[in-house]
């Protein structure tokens, strides 16, 4: 199967959803996202069968930009993440009634399309285009279907958009500069081959870093995050936190490190330190959040900080751990935000202070929420543990203090998550009625939890999938 099929499915899906009308939109979107998932699984099979899944079509002659897609293990893993989460996210929204839902679901599929493209593109510019494209739908999703005060939301969303765009434009500049050095080619292989001086590498590294640090986000570039997460509709938040953040992290591994390896090595400690600072900072800020989604946003900040730190170790373990943790975090964070949404659907609030006592009303929901909370704090046996352990292990190999400081996440994380859990779910029965989870909601949770637990005990398929490509990338990093 051609690698571009999945993109075509999603794109057609986006339009089909839009034209299917408000009533059918969600179902059509689900259908197409499932088709994309199927397609990605077929791709995975082909890949495992040793097929080289790539595609290069000349697109623009001068400067030489190709429509080049390549699905190696890493890319496939991310595509799978995106393809698996999209139906879950769409399905999870079935309980909500969105105005103009045809546009809403169309945008979701379009965003999935762009994100999948980002993971697959092997031409710098094509990658950049997908990267930017992914920004537009989420902007509208957050803007139009978001919640909270309209003015505040507008501010938050615009800040988010401009901020991320600002970062990525610097990346674009870096790409253009690189292509000059690579005789006008934007192909990733050519970019890998470019010989750059230390100084050039530094600036290019920095330009990439700006783009990724904002997207991921790494402190101190995270200020957009909490507000947008809070203001966006939960589906948007899920897309953002579940997949879009991973675009940044993925890009660090795919683009930033191999292209500017000298700089990566030179300034490794600084960037690891930034990542870890994010872990501690995010965790501490999360302690005193009153809004459920904001708290989750800061927890996400902490987690991705650790992933970023892992990526910047430039070791196989670090990269592998980072990728595993990306996938794990993708699922768990989607689950958690969905839980927040489930609560919101019933109580119309996310203020932690106004919640509580849900456990007596819906033990089922409590259990599922608890599993997600525990996965989020990386309890062994969940997928997150595998990732977090690997990352922390790699950090410990660089410097044990990184592991110690990064490891505070398991304490602080437990602190804020359990505190949140306690105040949201436990305590005296809430005066408001909490209807038990519906079948649809339950299915979404079940899928996420199943993934988390299965790979928690048996991460081997994913590890095997990503390891060869990570090794290749490491070879590029260490070539000189």
């Amino acid at each position: 199967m051609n690698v571009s099929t999945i993109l075509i499915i999603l794109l057609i899906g986006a339009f089909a959803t839009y034209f299917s009308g408000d009533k059918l939109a969600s179902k059509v979107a689900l259908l197409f996202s499932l088709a994309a998932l199927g397609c990605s699984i077929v791709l995975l099979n082909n890949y495992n069968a040793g097929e080289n899944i790539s595609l290069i079509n000349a697109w623009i002659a001068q400067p030489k930009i190709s429509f080049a897609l390549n699905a190696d293990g890493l890319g496939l893993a991310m595509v799978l993440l995106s393809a698996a989460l999209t139906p879950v996210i769409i399905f999870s929204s079935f309980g909500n009634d969105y105005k103009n839902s045809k546009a809403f679901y169309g945008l979701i599929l379009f965003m999935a399309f762009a994100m999948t493209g980002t993971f697959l593109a092997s031409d710098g510019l094509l990658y950049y285009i997908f990267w930017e494209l992914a920004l537009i739908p989420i902007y509208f999703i957050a803007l139009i279907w978001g919640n909270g005060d309209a003015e505040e939301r507008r501010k938050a969303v615009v800040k988010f958009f401009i901020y991320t765009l600002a970062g990525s434009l610097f990346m674009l500049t870096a790409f253009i500069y690189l292509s000059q050095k690579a005789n006008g080619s934007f192909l990733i292989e050519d970019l890998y081959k470019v010989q750059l001086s230390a100084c050039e590498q530094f600036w290019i590294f920095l330009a990439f870093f700006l783009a990724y640090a904002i997207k991921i986000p790494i402190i101190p570039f995270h200020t957009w995050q909490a507000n947008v997460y809070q203001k966006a509709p939960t589906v948007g938040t899920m897309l953002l936190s579940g997949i879009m953040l991973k675009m940044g992290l993925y890009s660090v591994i795919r683009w930033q490190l191999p292209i500017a390896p000298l700089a990566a090595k030179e300034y490794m400690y600084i960037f690891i330190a930034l990542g870890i600072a994010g872990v501690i900072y995010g965790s501490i800020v999360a302690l005193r959040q009153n809004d459920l989604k904001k708290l989750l946003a800061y927890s996400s900040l902490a987690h991705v900080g650790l992933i970023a730190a892992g990526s910047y170790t430039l070791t196989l373990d670090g990269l592998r751990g980072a990728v595993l943790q990306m996938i794990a975090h993708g699922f768990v964070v989607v689950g958690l935000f969905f839980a927040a949404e489930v609560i919101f659907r019933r109580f119309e609030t996310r203020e932690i202070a106004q919640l509580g006592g849900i456990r007596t009303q819906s033990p089922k929901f409590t259990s599922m929420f608890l599993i997600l909370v525990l996965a989020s704090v990386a309890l062994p046996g969940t997928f997150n543990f595998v990732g977090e352990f690997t990352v922390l292990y790699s950090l410990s190999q660089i410097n044990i203090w990184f592991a110690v400081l990064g490891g505070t996440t398991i304490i602080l994380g437990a602190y804020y998550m359990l505190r949140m859990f306690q105040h949201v779910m436990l305590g005296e029965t809430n005066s408001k009625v909490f209807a038990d989870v519906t079948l649809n909601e339950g299915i979404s949770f079940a899928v996420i939890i199943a993934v988390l637990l299965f790979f928690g005990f048996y991460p081997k398929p994913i590890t095997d999938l990503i390891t060869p490509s990570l090794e290749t990338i490491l070879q590029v990093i260490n070539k000189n």
Partner: protein
Amino acid sequence: MNTLIAITGLGIFCLLFEILNFRKGIIPFTILGLLGVLALNFCEFGSTESYYNNMITVSKFSTSFSSLFIILTIFLVALSHNFYENHPTKISDFVAIKIFLLAGGVAMVSFGNLAMFFLGIEILSIALYVLAASERLNLKSNEAGMKYFLMGSFASGIILFGICLIYGAMGSFDVVEISEYSLSAELPIWFPIGMVLVTIGMLFKIAAVPFHFWAPDVYQGSPALTTALMSTLAKVVAIATLFKLISGLNFIPSLENQDHLHTFENIIVFISIASMTVGNIMALRQVNVKRMLAFSGISHAGFMLMTFLTVATSAGVLLYYTAAYALAGIAAFSVILYVCKNQDDEDIANFHGLGKTNPLLAAILTASLLSMAGIPIFSGFFAKLFLFNQTIQTGHIALVIVAVINSIISVGYYFKLILAMYSKEPNQERTGKPFLIYAVAIISIALNVALGLFPSLVLDLLN
């Protein structure tokens, strides 16, 4: 040459139609005629010929830009139908003036003699003065016309003075001769001064800082369709002409001979940076959409000026950029025309809730703004990309970085409009779906996206 003749003839036919009392047919006929002209122009593509003692030289450059102008004019004429609904007696004049304006524009990009250039720019200018002031009972329109006229004729004077000095230096108005002489070592200083003066005059026309002041006022005051014309067609014509002047007269090599090249480049860089920055920053606080687009146009002029650092190779990029910009502009203005049809001004508040009342037009306006902001898949992005690519090749990284920062600022105001459309409640009912406006909006944005998907179509025309 045939194109020019055909266009002129078409203009005269327009006038005749009025006399023959065939008013209803004017616009369809004109559009058909322009399509025919476009086809004619396509036929000429690829040939490099000069006509009538080298008065007109047809080259790839001129034909491709002419095509762009013709396409833009088709859109503008199509939009005229609704815009001049209430002025049935004048419609032939309006259309004819636009056609003659197009003729001026075509002459400007295909001139082989400075006389043609001068006459072309004057036709263009005078037509614009008239169009700007054409709402005779509207003081704003009068003021816009007056401002544009005063400053425009001032700039024309400067251009004329520049041409005069060039003639003084070269003893000829012929482009070929001038370009040959300009390479000789012994040149009177009149030539570079003349060129600089002409350049300044043209910078005025494209509204580059510090010669930009007229643009916001005039754009705001003029009737919306005229603004559309100014911000798309007129700007594109001016920049293309300036490009042709500088490249066609071998200005750059001649400066190089005299060691002025560096300073000239610095000037270009400075003006480019200043235009972008001033345009973008000033646009941030605007509430009138036309005024905002004027400032946006100023900043785009800054971007386009970046091509002048690589005159030898960047014709294609300029064509692409102008096409992307103009098509986005047409799409945006067709929506503005629709929205502000019966409004006193083009305040952003008029756009509130357009996303709800009229999602298609809102989407088109959004797309065109995104294109102007340089968001991928719209051709505006590729335009910027190619531009940056070109510029980095010459080593002007700082300029590119400033341009990048400016792109970021620009998002601020483009999105202000998008926000207004999607996140505010509608404050008025909009009825009617004028076919031509929809058609223009859809086709232009489709062309814009098509350019984005297949940039090589345009980009390689001139390479």
